C-alpha cells in the first residue's frame, strides 16, 4: 500500500511504487481534474503541486511522493492564489476547449506562490511547459497578471 496526502487528506492506494501519480488520481481516486495529454512530460496537462512545486503527474511515480503534500486543481479554490487565478481566468474568458486549463492554472499557481508579480519573462519561463492547443496564451498571460494585480499589457516586444 502507498500512502499519499492529497489536498490535505490521507489516501491509501494498492498500486505498485512505480505507478504514475496521474493514473492514481484519475483511475484509482476518481479525481478527473488532472488531465492526460502526452505521458512524457511534454504538455503540462497533468500538472499538480508536490510540496508547492509544479510537477508533471504523468511521469511522477507514486512511490516518490509518499509523504509529500500533493495539491490538485480540485483544491485550488481553497487558496487565495487559486481563487484569484480562477476568477481572472473567468473574467478574461481564457477558456476555449479548456482541456489544458487545469494544468495551466496549476503552473500559474506555483509561479505566483514564488513570485507574486511576475513579468513577461517570468511568465514565459514558468508557463513554457504547458501546451494550449487552442493557443489561448495571450489571455493566459493577461489572466496571470490580473490575478497578480498588474497591468495586463504584453510588454515583450515593445
Amino acid at each position, binding site marked *: 500500500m502507498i500512502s499519499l496526502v492529497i489536498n490535505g487528506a490521507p489516501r491509501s492506494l494498492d498500486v505498485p511504487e512505480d505507478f504514475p501519480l496521474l493514473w492514481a488520481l484519475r483511475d484509482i481516486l476518481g479525481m478527473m*481534474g488532472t488531465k492526460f495529454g502526452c505521458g512524457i512530460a511534454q504538455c503540462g496537462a497533468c500538472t499538480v503541486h508536490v510540496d508547492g512545486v509544479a510537477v508533471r503527474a504523468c511521469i511522477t511515480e507514486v512511490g516518490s511522493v509518499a509523504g509529500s503534500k500533493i495539491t490538485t486543481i480540485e483544491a485550488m479554490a481553497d487558496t487565495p492564489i487559486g481563487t484569484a487565478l480562477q476568477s481572472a481566468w473567468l473574467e478574461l*474568458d481564457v477558456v*476555449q476547449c*479548456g*482541456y489544458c486549463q487545469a494544468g495551466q492554472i496549476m503552473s500559474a499557481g506555483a509561479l505566483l506562490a514564488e513570485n507574486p508579480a511576475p513579468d513577461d519573462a517570468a*511568465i514565459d519561463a514558468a508557463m*513554457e511547459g504547458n501546451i494550449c*492547443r487552442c*493557443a489561448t*496564451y495571450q489571455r493566459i498571460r493577461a489572466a496571470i497578471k490580473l490575478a497578480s494585480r498588474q497591468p495586463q499589457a504584453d510588454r515583450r516586444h515593445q
Partner: protein
Amino acid sequence: MTTVSRRLFLQIGAGATGALVVGFAWRAAAPADTRPLLLGNYVSIDIDGTVTVRAPNPEIGQGVKTSLPMLIAEELDVDWDRVRVEMAPNDPTRFGQQDAGGSMSIHRNYTALRQVGAAARWMLVDAAARRLQASHGEFRTAHGRVHHSSGQSFDYGELAAAASLLQLPDPKSLVLKDPAKFSIIGTSRRGVDSPRIVRGEPIFGIDMTLPDMAYAVYVKAPVFGARLLRCELAAARAERGIIDVFTLKGQGDRHGLQDGIAIIASSWWYAQAARAKLEPLWDTDIGVGHDSTRYREEAHSLLAKPGTVLEEKGDVEAALAQAAQRLTADYEVPFLAHATLEPQNCTARVKGDSVEIWAPTQTPEEGRQLVARTLGVAPDSVIVHMRRAGGGFGRRLENDYMAEAASIARHAGVPIKLVWSREDDFAHDFYRAASYHRLRAGLDKKGRVSAFAAHGVTFAHGSEVAQAAGIEGNGFESRVVPASRLEQSLIPTIVPTGYLRAPVSNGLAFVRECFWDELALAANMDPVAFRLAALSNGSSSGGSFDAARMRAVLEAVALRSNWAKARLAKGQGMGVACYFSHSGYFAEVVRVRVDADGHWQVLNVWVAGDIGSQIVNPLAARAQVEGAVMDGIGSMRAEITVVNGAAIQTNFDGFPLLRMPEAPVVDVEFVMSAAAPTGLGEPALPPVLPAVANAIHAACGARVRQLPLTAERIQAARRG
C-alpha cells in the same frame, strides 16, 4: 398523471439544397400539473421561471455551447443570467444537423435558432393573450416577462404551463428583432462551461466513468492499414491489473474498426504498461514505398507533365507567352497531425443489442451510424452522448474510436473506457495531406498579373482524391486574373487523410499568397497596393467571392498595422496576406524578427476579418481569431514524415506546438458588412502562414517556399 407527447416540426430556412428541419416538439401536461414543463426541445421554461436552453451542437472549444443558446435567448427576450444551458441529446430529427465542422454552426443556425426563440416567445404571449382575452398587439416582452398595455404582467414561468398546450406559430408569421435592439447577440458572454473547467470538474469525454467500468487500450498496426497476422496474448494477460486481452478483426474501413489487440485492465495505466508484453506480427508489406521522400520525387516528375484541368479561364499559355515578365516557383507543404490535446477516447456500454456511447465527437450522428454498422445492430438501438471535447480541429469528424470502444465493450462484456495514448494518436490520425505545387504567372508592362497557372500534386486513395486532399481555387485568381488555369495530379497513398482546421485552405493560402508576394515584388509594387489593384479589376467579383469585401479588410488591416509606415528594428520585417475561406474574408499583417542564425519569432499579428453583419459573441469571437492565428503560426514549425507507411513522429517532442514564449500579440478588428453572419473557427487561420513567410522575406531576404519553415531553410535561402 398523464403526459401527452406530441411532436411538431417547424420548417425553417428552406433553401436550394432542401429545407433545414429544426425540431420543435414539446411535451405537454395537464394545466393543473405543477411539474416543470418542456416548451420545445430547445427551450424549457419551468413554472418557477427557470429557463433552460439546449445547445444542439458539439462543443470543441469554438464556443457554440454559448453562442447558439444566445441566439435563442435573444429572441425569447429573457435575461442571459437567467438562462441555464445544457447539452442537447444527439437527435437530428429534433435538432437538425448536429455537428461541428466547416465553421458552419452560426452560418446554418443564425436565423433558425432565432426563430426557435421567437416561436417560444410567441407562445408565451399567446398564453397571456388568451388569459386576458386580448390580442397579441397589446403585449410586449422584456426580461422574461410578458407585459400587457394595462400594466398587468406575467413572468414566463406563470405562463409556461398554458403555453405548452398551444399550437406552434407558423414560422413565416414570426417577426424577428431588429438587430439594433439586440441585448444578447452582439454582447460579450463568457463560456458557459468555464466555471466548471477552472475547478477541474469532470466534463470532458475522457472524464466519463460508469459503474463497473474497465479501462482499455487498443493496439493497432504500426503501418497504415496493415493486417494482424498473429499475436501471443498470454504474457500480457499475466500482468498486474489485466482483466482480459483479445484480438479484434478489422472491417476494411479506414474510418472504422481496424485489426488490433484490446487490453482490458482495472486502470488505464495497467493496460498501457502491458502493451510491452505483446509481440504482434503485422503484414507490413503494404507500407513499402510509402515515404515522404519518394512522394516528393514523384510529385516533381508529375509537375513536369500536364495535370487534370480543374478550372480554366482564357488561354493561359498564350497570356504567359505575351507577358512582359514571367515567374515560376515551386511550393510544398507537409503532412500534419491534429494533435487534439485530449487524446481520442470513448466510453461504451453494450447490453445485448443496446449500445450507449459517450464520446468527444464533432459528428455524433455519423458516429451512431458507424457504431450500428460495426456491431450489426439497428441505429435506433445506439445512443451517442456528446461530451465536451478537448479540441477537435477536424480530428473528431472521424469516429474510429467509437467503433473500437463499442466493439471492445461488446467483447469484454463490461462497460469500458478506451483511451488512446499520445503515440496512438500520432500513429493513427487522418492527416492533413502534403501537397506540391508549381505556380507560373505573367505580369504585363504595367505590372498587372495577366496570367496565372497553378498545378498541384496531391494524393489519391484508389482512383478518388484522398479525403480533404483536393486542390481548389478560392475564387481569387480565377476572378482577378484575365487568364488562369488550375491543374491537379494525384499520387496513390495509404496514408489516411482528413480535415484539419481550415482544410485545403491551410496549405493553399501559403502557396498562393506567398507567390502573390513574389509577384508584387517583381512588379515593384507594395504588396498591399498590388493586391488592392488586382481586387479592383472590373471582373473581380462573382460566384461566392466578393472582391469589395476583401478590399475592405485589406485596407482595414493596413491602417491598423501602420503598414509601410511602421519603424522596424534591425532584423525585423512585416508581411501581409489575405484569404477567403469558409465564407470569411481575412487580411493579416505580421511583424517578425529573424535572428542571424535563422531563428524567427512572430512579434505581432494584426487581423481584419469580415464574417458578415453580426458578431454574435465578440469576446469569444476574438478568442477564435487569436487561437486560429497562433494555430497557423505553430503549424509552420511542424510536420509528419512518412516512412514505410508510418508516421515517424510519435509525440509532442517530435511535433512542436506553439508555446507561451512564442505566442505573438494578436490584434483583431471585425469589419462589418451586409452579408449574413458566418462562422469563425477557421477562416482567420489560412492567411497567417503566408503573412509570416512574407514577413520573413521582408526581414532577411529569404524566400522559403517549403514548410515547415525551419531556420535551416532560411539560412539556405539567404545563401541563395
